């Protein structure tokens, strides 16, 4: 593959220049600052900003200019064809995270809690680095969506380490692929089998946890038309789907309940062995309620907290015609009028943090401090204990704004470990009309008189603002209500 050879050579060249000297590499990697002479003057969010706020981890002034240059359609098509996007800078940032590429068997050799935690922290840091810096932004947004959908809590038994494999082999290969393929992969994922206790689902002691959640959360939805009896029967089908001591999927025939089963109106004949579970997966993948449930969740993420019924109906048809082909469904969603007229979505803590780092051109060096910060803000990557994944509606995240304001304050004042914002570079905005120009660079539109007034009341009218003023100005813009929505 010429592609990766070229990347490899680039990596080597940079490595040779900068061996052991990461500031030089970091300088090479720094995305360009917003062009102070070419800012977005508009009263409300432009269509490009709207598109980018939904399909990336945060529109930035620079990215808006890039999309203006190539056009929205071309940019989106490039995003769909994500493997063709050269992401060498981002890959270089991951260079010290050694556990990301380890095999399941090797990962299982981490057994002490602090060691397991080290592995978990690396995956969480990698997630953040990719969200901030990857040029495959749309792909990363979908990876995040599917990581929530097939939620695995990082701190249960061996999920600390096996989630690394799930991320690499279940979520990422299929995030912009086929839903059925992803569900099949997830059902064979050791981390999922551990997390939802199917590892201990045997004929003599059936465990219904996975059986229930695959229907309630992964496919049909809680009102998806299954009964308690279906839960028990599906659990029987998955008896023996377990995990080997090398961290691989393992079917244990001696644990399997080989009798006949009735699942959602289908008879699964006795003697099917492992294929009973495979049959269940096909029944669920092809069930009409799966299409509707998944489409509803996608619309909630990309369009509105309360998914509009016409859009859900339309996309449910697309899902079924395309057999759950995610790019086909997403293309149709992004073309829909209801997408373009959608009301703002409230940023969850993760989206607030990442978009802040993107907007301010911050450097994040992969340190765990930022992962821990997100934990205190309520959204550590892979840190949601229950299988329903982080909620996606504004009213579930309302509550205290103190953690958001404090993150903005700490980030601009150099008080957030692992993060540095180039305040010196932001000083280029310090002169004439600084407040509005900074506002345009961060909020991607003109400030409202009210925002302008609130900021002026703190920093006052000056010809030239000093570095401390710039920090204050940035903190206020990043804490403003406008920045909490996308």
């Amino acid at each position, binding site marked *: 593959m010429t592609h990766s050879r070229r990347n490899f050579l680039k990596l080597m060249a940079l490595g040779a220049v900068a061996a052991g000297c990461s500031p030089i590499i970091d300088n090479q990697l720094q995305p360009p600052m917003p062009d102070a002479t070419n800012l977005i003057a508009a009263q409300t969010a432009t269509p490009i900003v709207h598109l980018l706020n939904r399909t990336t981890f945060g529109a930035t002034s620079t990215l808006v200019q890039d999309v203006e240059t190539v056009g929205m359609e071309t940019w989106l098509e490039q995003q769909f064809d994500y493997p063709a996007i050269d992401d060498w800078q981002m890959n270089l940032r991951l260079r010290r995270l050694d556990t990301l590429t380890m095999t399941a068997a090797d990962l299982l050799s981490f057994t002490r809690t602090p060691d397991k935690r080290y592995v978990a922290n690396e995956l969480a840091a990698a997630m953040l680095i990719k969200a901030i810096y990857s040029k495959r932004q749309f792909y990363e947004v979908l990876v995040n969506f599917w990581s929530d959908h097939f939620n695995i809590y990082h701190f249960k038994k061996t999920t600390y380490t096996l989630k690394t494999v799930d991320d690499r082999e279940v979520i990422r290969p299929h995030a912009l692929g086929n839903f059925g393929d992803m569900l099949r992969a997830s059902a064979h994922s050791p981390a999922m089998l551990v997390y939802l206790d199917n590892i201990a689902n045997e004929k003599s002691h059936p465990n219904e946890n996975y059986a229930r959640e695959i229907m309630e959360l992964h496919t049909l939805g809680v009102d998806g038309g299954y009964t308690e009896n279906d839960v028990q029967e599906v659990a029987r089908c998955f008896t023996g789907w377990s995990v080997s001591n090398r961290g691989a999927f393992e079917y244990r025939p001696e644990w399997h309940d080989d009798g006949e089963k009735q699942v959602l109106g289908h008879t699964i004949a006795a003697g099917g062995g492992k294929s009973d579970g495979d049959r269940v997966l096909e029944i669920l993948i092809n069930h009409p309620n799966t299409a509707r449930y998944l489409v509803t969740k996608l619309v909630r993420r990309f369009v509105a907290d309360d998914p509009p019924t016409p859009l859900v109906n339309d996309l449910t048809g697309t899902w079924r015609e395309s057999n759950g082909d995610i790019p086909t469904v997403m293309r149709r969603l992004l073309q829909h009028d209801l997408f373009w007229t959608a009301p703002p979505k409230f940023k969850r803590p993760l989206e607030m943090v990442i978009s802040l780092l993107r907007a301010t051109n911050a450097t994040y060096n992969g340190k765990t401090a930022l992962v821990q910060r997100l934990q205190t803000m309520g959204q550590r990557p892979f840190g949601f204990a229950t299988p329903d994944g982080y909620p996606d509606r504004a009213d579930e995240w309302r509550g205290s704004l103190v953690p958001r304001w404090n993150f903005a*304050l700490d980030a601009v004042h150099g*008080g957030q470990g692992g993060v540095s914002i180039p305040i010196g570079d932001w000083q280029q905005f310090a002169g004439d009309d600084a407040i509005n120009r900074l506002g345009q660079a961060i909020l991607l539109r003109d400030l409202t008189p009210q925002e302008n007034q609130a900021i002026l009341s703190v920093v006052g009218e000056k010809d030239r603002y000093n570095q401390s003023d710039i920090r204050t100005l940035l903190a206020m813009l990043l804490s403003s209500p406008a920045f909490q929505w996308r």
Partner: protein
Amino acid sequence: MTTSRRSFLKSAGIVGAGLFLQDLYPSWMPRLAFAQNGASGDVIVCVFLRGGADALNIVVPFGDDDYYRARPTLSLAPPDSSNNSAVLELTDFFGLNPDMAAMHELLTSGQMTAIHAVGAPHVSRSHFEAMDLIERGTDGSQGANTGWLGRYLSQTASDTDTPLRAIGWSDSLQTSLLGYIPATALRSITDYHLASENAESFQASMSQMYQSDDALTQAAQSTIDTLNLVQQIDVDNYIAANNAQYYETNLGRALKQTAALIKADAGLEVACIDMGGFDTHIAQGNIVGTGIGEFPFLVKELADNLRAFHDDLLNHIHKVTVVVMSEFGRRVQENGATGTDHGHGGVMFVMSSDLQPVTVHGQWPGINSRFLDNGDLAITNDYRDVLSEIMLQRTTIGSVNNVFPNYRSTPIGLYR
């Protein structure tokens, strides 16, 4: 306090009826500052003893000879006023660990009660699984994705809840609070301040910026109110009432700050507090001052601080219910290392108002080997019976079907 007065006036549409309300509910009038719908219930404080607390040496069955047979070195003597290592009499069968003397009067005067041989029916002997099960409040690992207090809070949530409605005094939220997203995990109330040297002007500008007519603005205004409130509480200089003395420990600090929030009418409805160290496999210890062992110090810390909390809140305690629980009790027979291993039946305490004057509830199953459950104290009371009764008697929910799904509780008879 201008902010709360303003919201108070806004809150009720009761400006004219103010006097009437004041007469009717004088004690919690100030809580209307935050206009909560669940306001008429008690503040629930849940103290969880992590590690499996040794119930037999907390509420001691001195009337059961098998206790002394099973605990040759760890037993505590029957009540005897001339022996300061003897238990303090609660009934003619049970006595209180002498290091918990601070709680004795509360128990004998009907302000607190104990429930013995209590726990979850089919609980694992693993700390993690047992705590998980109990904090979720469910049978087995299946079903609820949320904690029992989280479900309670969600059920009674309203648009005007304050950010300090539910606090877990911990680095990360306790499982029992899961399901109520705005629940806040704090190590200390001092975490609730702005990380800025110019907090005041920053706060003022936020107040100016957040002026739309939406939920976020509401959240911002309530955040700013709370920041002001926390600033006024000034926990660093907080002085407890009635000479109450809290320890400078996690437990003491959490109880003290909980008391401060209750007095300040900060809208607190649920607080979860953890106390660790009860996994006493080795050299458990008998009483303070007789050599090695952490256990006597732990139970003394627990009793002294609960007493301090009670005394400090004397004028508010009729609106507060404290429940003390653990994931399981310990093995009846002491082990070869003068410690105790993981067991089953445990003890709970409830500090509340309108309690029956009963010091120890629960049917005693006996600890003769033929009554034991795999060597452990059997369970005659489900912990959910205790919690359900508190919920039904001291909060406004009316039904515990959501709090403890698929469970039909049997009242213990804690309340008058």
